[in-house]
């Protein structure tokens, strides 16, 4: 969780996959080799990276940690149904435009007063025409903000599967060329392409066109050894023995037929809860009392409760 006091320059972390793994672990993200390789390729090929996996395996966290590691600002866009251009890219400040038109209305009369005839007034008006569709009236939204960061940034497009199909198509231009077209202003191209993360929970299948433009990374539920390391990093002060026990318990839960098997974030939460309760070993009663931290559905809890003792003894 705690980043080291002096951060080495970003370029060092990107020199090789191993350096990247090390760098990520220094900011508290324990990455498997596959994750690090995908990230390494994304940086080197300047391609967006599409991260899939069940809820709570650390998809969003990967983007946050990367931004932290590279010392870049993170711009986050949460997707939802009905998200459209005006909320993702830019919007004109309509209110301000209207207000200014009203204020300038009187000035307009005096500015045009000395025009000899109608045509001359029109010509003069044309000169002022684009006034209201210029930068000061532009309200940049996350995508445009990301393209305008001259030193680069990490752009996180979270849960892209929740957005509409039309929005997905709209993303294509941004993702492949790192540019957007604003009809009134022209094409805006990023000076430094942002490092783009898209995350997906598989609410729906994404289109092939979008998938093709991205590197694909599927984060599975981790193996016991990796998960122990993650818990140890994320929850300082948890004892090694307890870590081992609770990870083994969670791993055995995942073999059951549950509606929502616990993922990494649940394991970490549980470890935190146990530390708060000053527990140093897992007793059946303690597990039963804290089961609601790792299981989020009543049916799951009901199904697991009678098996707690057996699960604890299984390993």
């Amino acid at each position, binding site marked *: 969780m705690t980043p080291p006091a002096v951060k080495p320059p970003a370029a060092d972390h990107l020199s090789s*996959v191993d350096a990247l793994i090390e760098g990520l672990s220094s900011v508290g993200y324990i990455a498997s*080799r*596959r994750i690090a*390789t*995908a990230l*390494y*390729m*994304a940086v*080197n*090929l300047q*391609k967006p*990276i*599409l991260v*899939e996996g069940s809820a709570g395996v650390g998809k969003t966290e990967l983007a946050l940690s990367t931004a932290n590691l590279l010392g870049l600002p993170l711009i986050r866009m949460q997707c939802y*149904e*009905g998200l*459209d251009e005006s909320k993702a890219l830019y919007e004109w400040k*309509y*209110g301000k435009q*209207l207000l200014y038109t*009203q204020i300038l209305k009187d000035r307009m009369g005096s500015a045009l007063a000395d025009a000899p005839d109608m045509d001359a007034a029109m010509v003069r008006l044309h000169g002022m025409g684009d006034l209201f569709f210029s930068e000061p009236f532009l309200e940049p939204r996350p995508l445009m903000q990301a393209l305008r960061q001259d030193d680069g940034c990490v752009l996180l497009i979270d849960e892209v599967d929740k957005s*509409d*199909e*039309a*929005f997905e198509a709209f993303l294509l231009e941004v993702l492949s060329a790192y540019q957007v077209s604003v009809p009134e202003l022209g094409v805006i191209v990023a000076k430094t392409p942002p490092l783009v993360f898209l995350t997906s929970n598989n609410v*729906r*299948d994404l289109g*092939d066109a979008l*998938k*093709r433009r*991205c*590197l*694909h*990374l*599927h984060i599975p539920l981790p193996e016991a050894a990796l998960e122990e390391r993650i818990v140890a990093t994320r929850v300082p002060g948890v004892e090694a023995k307890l870590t081992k026990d609770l990870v083994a318990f969670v791993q055995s839960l995942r073999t059951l037929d549950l509606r929502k098997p616990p993922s990494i974030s649940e394991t970490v939460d549980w470890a935190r809860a146990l530390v708060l309760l000053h527990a140093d070993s897992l007793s059946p009663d303690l597990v039963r009392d804290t089961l609601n931290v790792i299981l989020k559905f009543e049916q799951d809890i009901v199904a697991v409760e009678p098996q707690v003792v057996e699960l604890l003894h299984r390993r």
Partner: protein
Amino acid sequence: MQHTLEQFFRALRAADVRISPAEAIDASRAVMVTGYGDRPLFKDALCATLAKSAEEVTRFDAVFETFFARDAINLNPPPEGSPQGEPSQEDLDATAGSPLAQAVLTGDATAVQQSMEEAAARAGVADIRLTTQRSRLTRRLLEEMGLEEIERIIANARRMPDGQGEGLANRLDAARRNLFTEAQAYVARQHDLYAAGSAQELREERLVRKALNADGGVDPVDYQLMAALVKKMAKRLAAKYSRRRRAARKGHLDVRKTLRKSMAHEGIPFEIAWKVKKIDKPSIVAICDVSKSVAAAAQFLLTFLYSLNEVVDRMDAFAFSGRLISVNDILDDNGVEGAILKVLQQIGFQQTDYGRSLQDFADNHLDRLDRRTTVIFLGDGRSNFADPRLDIMRQIHDRARAVIWLNPEPESYWAQGDSVMHRYARFCHVAKQCGTLEQLERIIDDVLRSYVPH
């Protein structure tokens, strides 16, 4: 190396991992960054650029391991009696004409392997399509490697006086047999890579065109495959249309409303009003025949009913043979197989009675039909000479927005025997033959497109 990558892409495509030229270019660029030295890194880099879903990652892993498996060729140790290690000078002289023989004798596995790869490229082993090509390709591979040379040397050695060449001949003979096994294994591996999928494709292609109600139904051997195919199609349709329904409902500026609202602000349009689209809520009523005469097709029709149920928000599903029941709950509460089994258990395979079933529908469910409803019948229109109740059919036709009848029998049968299809057809907006899976998919696709407004 580029050539090897291309071959690898081909193998992946054969394994149903879709790779477009753009992705191939990406992969090549990725490899330029990583180099070929570090195998895990090389693999992960290719995986990140090529595989685009969790299933594809699994398939990628399998293909990668097979494709880049280059187990060292197992060269026989020299047979007992001859000294280990360096072959004698005479042997080398005798085999001077054949680099392959020399490589075999000196135990140079790398050279043999390399020559096999080159020979494979010349023999076009990677173009293998069918299992039956295997032995021929093995033979060609060995020929290209220069097996004839070795055979000639063996023959020469055996002809030498006093059995001088016997040792050499025996050793080469053993090596030759060994090479043969290796070549066979190599060709088999290539077959797995490039052709294993194509045989499956051939079978699937044939099944898609097979008549659903053919005599004797679907071959039990093919049954599993066919059920899988139906599911695949259903999923494809579901993906296509559930996406469409999500299309954003964005409005245009409603000038009239905006002006009216601006009255309060001295005509300055501070509040902008947008036109809101009214959403037409379409619904589908699907009525499926599961009687004896359509026994073979019933399973597939039901599978489709099931998939429709997932695609369309408001759908009422009914099944009938002698009587008609609503199967909504069954479809909602069970998985595909379970649901179909239950429906068939409840009312499947009895004598059809169209009149009776229509009567059931009219009595209990006619209120489900309104001008937004599309009615889909799946059945053969054979009513065992019972009263077809055309009056109810007319009623359905008048109330519903559209009536579509999909019949597994060809049109020429529609008026023959106990078929009343030609009479029902008058009250249908669309009446079509739908005898194969391919037709079924196409028609349902049409139906969804034209009768489910988005």
